[in-house]
């Protein structure tokens, strides 16, 4: 569904590569988690997959179509939810959803049904008449999620989708993500919440400073360790050893006593 081949992004010629020769393959039915520290190149990669950001080298294919050459065709079958959903503050929630429905040419009857269903799931139905500007960050995130699902995309690309969501909405989103992929859709999302990635993802990729460190089935990548341990081993140069941690803990306990 999403094929990233030797993707390289360099913001200025001769400058540092934000992402260097990244290749990933996300199949239909897969939830693919994209992990990395802040500034590792996750958002840059995600934006390139959505056709928002141009790239220096490589190729990105959505359902076999090139994002560079056929951006509109690719965008029609995917949906993107950014980490900070800056939506149109001057519109009401329902106006925004109707606008998205118009862009994707979702028939009126179907869009009413979808809006009713998804906004009820996300718990934002009552707020749909209010201006988006009056929404909290979490509410905007929920609205962006409902908007992204209206045209039944085949590929969902999400940047930190759980940030700002309340536990119920996060639970519903996780359940939805699973159902979506079970029905043949594919999800590529970035997250810092390793527990979510560990429980939810079929595959993960870990990048550091634009370079791929590990990728594959979650079980293969983490082996017998927890994902947190693997992540810290791969990404964090300042990993605290178990002995050091125990010593620090003992010191703190003595001090408190």
């Amino acid at each position: 569904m999403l094929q990233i081949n030797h993707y390289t992004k360099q913001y200025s010629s001769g400058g540092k590569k934000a992402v260097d020769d990244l290749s990933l393959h996300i199949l239909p039915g897969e939830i693919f988690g994209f992990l990395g520290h802040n500034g590792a190149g996750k958002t840059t990669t995600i934006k390139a997959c959505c056709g928002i950001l141009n790239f220096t080298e490589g190729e990105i294919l959505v359902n076999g179509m090139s994002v560079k050459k056929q951006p509109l065709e690719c965008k029609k079958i995917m949906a993107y939810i950014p980490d900070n959903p800056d939506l149109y503050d001057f519109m009401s929630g329902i106006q925004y959803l109707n606008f998205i429905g118009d862009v994707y040419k979702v028939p009126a009857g179907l869009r009413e049904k979808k809006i009713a269903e998804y906004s009820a799931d996300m718990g934002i139905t009552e707020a749909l008449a209010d201006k988006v500007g009056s929404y909290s960050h979490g509410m905007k995130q929920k609205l962006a999620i409902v908007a992204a699902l209206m045209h039944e995309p085949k590929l969902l690309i999400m940047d930190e989708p759980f940030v700002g969501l309340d536990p119920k909405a996060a639970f519903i989103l996780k359940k939805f993500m699973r159902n979506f992929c079970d029905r043949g859709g594919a999800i590529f999302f970035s997250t810092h919440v390793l527990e979510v990635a560990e429980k939810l993802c079929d595959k993960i990729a870990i990048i550091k400073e634009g370079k791929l460190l590990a990728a594959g089935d979650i079980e293969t990548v983490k082996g017998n360790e927890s994902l947190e341990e693997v992540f810290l081993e791969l990404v964090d140069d300042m990993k605290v050893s178990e002995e050091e941690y125990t010593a620090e803990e003992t010191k703190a306990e003595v001090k408190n006593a």
Partner: protein
Amino acid sequence: MLKLLLKTRFLAMIDRVSGQNKRKAATARKLTLMVLGGLVVLALIGGLFGLLVSPLYTGFRDNGMTWLTYAMAGAMACVLSFVLTMFYAQGAIFEAKDNELLLSMPIRPSAILGSRMGALYFLNLLFCVTILGAVGVLRAMDGGIQVLHVIIFLVCIPLLALIGTTLSCLLGWLVSLITRRMRRKALFSLVLSLVFMGFYFYAMLGLSDHLQAILANSGNIADAFQKVLLPFYAMAMAITEGDLIQLLIFAACCVVPFALVYFLLSRSFIRIVTTKVGAKRTEYKGGSLKESSVVWSLTKKDLDRFFNSSTYMLNCGMGLVFALILGIATLVSGNALLDFLLKTYARMEDPGALAPYVMPVVLGLLAGMAYICAPSISVEGKNFWILDSLPLKVKDILKSKLLFHLVVAVPFSLVSSLLVVIGMPMTPMQAVIMFLFPLLAHVFCATISMVTGLYTAKLDFPSEAKAVKSSACGLPPMLATAAVTLTPSILYFTTLKEQGADFGTVLLIAIGVMAAVSIAAYAFLLSPAAEKRWHKIRR
């Protein structure tokens, strides 16, 4: 702490004025140039004001009432400063985004308020220096001023700025309180701004009459100042007579209300800025949704943004309001208004026959002030990702923005023309030109605005207001429309008239030129070159 906060306020003001982008800080050289530029502008405004009140000053001086000029200038400085800084007070004191952040730090609320009022005071001080300074210069040109009078004059200016600051704070707080629960805040701000502007234009248009009336009734006005506007009377007497008692009275009139307002606001500052009333909520009850075409849906989106922003409407829609006012004025007064304007400003002896041709040119000129779609790409700013991530053709986006411009401008153009046609006697051909010329000027302005908007678009403006006010996008369409609407008249009056050409035919040719340029610009907007340019905006 107050010093640090004040420094932050002034840095923010410099940033607003300098128009720096996020990445670059203003350099010392640019700051110096900015300060010098600011001083020149103030000196020019002061000079103009001096020229304006000069006859008044001479009249009062000859009647032995020089003090009245100071009293009137003081009152005018206060009114001007509080009107111009009221919205600043509302935004920067009561609705500032960093209020809660600062309150979470170990800073006394009175210090936060003090720093914000300090910045406001600085702005008011500039107005007072400009207005009162002009009168001071007029007086100095007469000679024979004592040092004591100069000292008192210099003390009075910073004191006077306190009155404007006090009034701005009170009114800003009131506006903030009123608009807190409003769903249509933009409309309220727009109406309030238009009311103030209306008063301003009313005062300016009838200035010569007002001055005559003031001179004729100077005795009554002097009485009014003594009885009702005591602070200004005291200030004027202190400056002209060197009366220290009056200076003390004036100082008390300025300092006591300011201190009282500062005390009251600082005591309730936390409550004022943290009480989140918010707009009245409406529960969504479902209902049928209407499908629209992609282009019309995008147009509706831009219309929503426009009508929800008083800054956008005021900056890019003034030409439409002026055109409507002109239409109504013509309907009421017939040829009289235009005759008066042409006689006064164009020095035409008998404009009557030309009036039906001059009016479409004036309306065409006003069309240039409505460069509505020029900032429409820049105002997308943080929302640009939405257009970028959706399966939208660039030409559909550009078409929708053009349509948005015309949907707003064309009804105003048609109504204004209709009012003029009803109010002013003209032939059928003149009536056709009356409709077509302004209409084509709007189409011309829209297409040029769109092309300019495409090339000047920046997505990192710190606010929508700044994107709208950016002269880079507004100036070219305004100048181009002025050029295309004025050139035929200039050509007619300088050469073509002598050769026996008909003014109407000249205007019809101009309509043709505007149509041709608009078609060319529209064709460009639909071309791959425009699409390429669009993609460069974000990359």
